[in-house]
């Protein structure tokens, strides 16, 4: 664990919930991220999957310190980001960059591509004003955009091209790790493949670590080395990508995998679907014990008693279910 590039130890992010009209008081909290421990190594692609509201995006923003953690620590290169001073944090941000889901909203519409890409270079003093143009051109070439488009504004580009600009902006500071929050969800299938190829090649070529958040398991399986499955603020399964998706162990992961439509009519007809009842419960008032038990087809009374910890269930493969042993042959 000590050689990890990024380490999360029991990270918790709660949002206060207020009620009352004249006298506002905190009546509870949304436990968006509730005790996540993870390690990401250099050059590794970690896929993070789960349904909407499970806390994946909050976790991403907590890692980048865009939202302060309520508890636990985020350690980058041996430095605790929660305790870093402003100056130290600025230096850390060089190593830690983010790509957002919606390239229409994440680029400043009043800045040209050149201005967008030059800003981080100048703020961090990577290069002087004279060399900026060369650097920007180089970045554009890396992500597959012609440098002659540098003076254009975001609205002049298509969704896929805008996402390329966002990737270039994240790469500008030569980070060691990029957090990508659903970078292809807003794109069409034919454009999705282009961005996935780009991210995958960049990670390999630059030895970049990538935390790739998505809800499409086939995309995650394709690009990730390891996969973490989140449910209601916690990781319920973690392991090598093929292991987790081809041989899922946690009942939630099994249901999630079985819910993905397969683009092959013969397989679709033959396979057995696990259709979960209900929807994810509210993180304001999570069910006691295993948060999945109200929807779990294998739940027992003792599933209500305590939160199951992640337990090993194969090589580098962990799952948080007390019935792992009993359910192994399903």
């Amino acid at each position, binding site marked *: 664990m000590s050689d990890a590039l990024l380490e999360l130890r029991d990270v918790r992010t709660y949002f206060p919930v207020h009620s009352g009209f004249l006298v506002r008081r905190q009546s509870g909290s949304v436990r968006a991220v509730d005790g996540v421990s993870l390690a990401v190594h250099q050059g590794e692609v970690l896929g993070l999957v789960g349904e909407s509201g499970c806390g994946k995006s909050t976790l991403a923003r907590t890692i980048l310190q865009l939202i302060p953690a309520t508890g636990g620590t985020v350690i980058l290169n041996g430095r605790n980001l929660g305790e870093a001073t402003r100056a130290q944090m600025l230096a850390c941000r060089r190593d830690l960059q983010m790509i957002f889901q919606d390239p229409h909203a994440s680029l400043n519409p009043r800045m040209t591509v050149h201005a967008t890409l030059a800003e981080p270079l100048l703020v961090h003093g990577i290069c002087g004003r004279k060399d900026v143009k060369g650097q920007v051109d180089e970045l554009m070439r890396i992500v597959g955009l012609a440098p002659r488009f540098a003076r254009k504004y975001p609205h002049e580009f298509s969704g896929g091209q805008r996402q390329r600009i966002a990737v270039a902006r994240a790469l500008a500071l030569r980070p060691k790790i990029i957090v990508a929050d659903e970078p292809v969800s807003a794109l069409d299938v034919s454009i999705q493949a282009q961005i996935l*190829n780009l991210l995958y090649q960049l990670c390999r070529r630059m030895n970049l670590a990538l935390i790739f958040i998505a809800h499409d398991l086939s*995309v995650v399986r*394709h690009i990730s080395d390891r996969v973490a499955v989140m449910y209601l603020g916690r990781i319920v399964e973690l392991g090598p990508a*093929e292991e987790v998706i081809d041989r899922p162990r946690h009942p939630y992961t099994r249901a999630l995998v079985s819910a993905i439509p397969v*683009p092959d009519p013969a397989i679709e007809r033959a396979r057995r679907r696990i259709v979960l009842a209900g929807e994810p419960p509210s993180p304001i008032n999570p069910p006691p014990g295993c948060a999945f038990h109200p929807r779990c087809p294998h739940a027992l009374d003792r599933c209500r008693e305590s939160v199951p910890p992640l337990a090993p269930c194969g090589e580098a493969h962990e799952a948080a279910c007390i019935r792992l042993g009993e359910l192994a042959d399903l």
Partner: protein
Amino acid sequence: MPLLTVTDLRTHFHTRNGRYRAVEGVGFSVERGETLGIVGESGSGKSVTCYSIMGLVPQPPGRIESGSAMFDGVDLLRCAPRLARSIRGKRVSMIFQDPMTSLNPYMRISEQVIEPLLIHENITKREALFRALAMMEAVGINDAAQRIHYYPHEFSGGMRQRVMIAMALVTRPELLIADEPTTALDVTVQAQILELIRSLQHELGMAVIFVTHDLGVVAGLCNKVLVMYAGRVVEAADTDTLFREPLHPYTRALQRSLPALHSKGEELFTIPGLPPDVSKPLPGCAFAPRCGYAAEACTAAVPELAQAAPGHWHACMRVRAGEIDFGAGGTDQ
């Protein structure tokens, strides 16, 4: 006779920036009880096709330039508005992508679900409420008797989509048009809604037109598939044939760009370039600029749909001329 036959539908939008040819000569037919999938990327005209059939294209700027949609002997595009209204909403219903914006936030669910019944059937409010309740239960809403009096914001996304399905099905339509009904939902909820549509279709024997961009959903749900590109149909076949031996280069490319069909880490097949701008007339095949097989003839004339095998149509002149050999197992290019 098919339940619905659409022929040569052309829907254009006349805007200040020119004429957008959203739908440019689309034709298909749907038999009773059958599920037809329409797939395509955003902007391919699949939604506008459905809106045209349902009379939901805003006119102006939209205009249905030509074509017909024969539903059980009535042309929905040309018949008297009164007659069309008596069919739409009763015998043909539609559900939309976004259940957040398609329900009226000011009206209780009960009022919205009984509305089609009160308009189309000569029954009392009491009877309508009774039937609405039965339909709410059929789409899997627990405590329907109580929750039918709630407002839309008191339901989650998946539940709202169920309410919308209940609303569409309460008149027991013969044809349901579903425009990306699961795109905004989580996969586990999507699985629930697809299962629901499957079982209700079985029970009511209705035909379904299912619009989606997800080839996986099509594979599991549809009997026939229509692939659209830039406002035109480029390939149509039954589902098994389309997935096993796609003929149009666009269908093949779309299928091959899916991560699910690649081994891990392998470079994904990509389609270069972007979908064309439909505001300018396209001289030839709309896919030619992005197609790996394009020849000079492709940009000269718009290719007609040709039948390759019974029920399998495609619009590629090079495939028809037998000039492209995709080879077995899809190892071309």
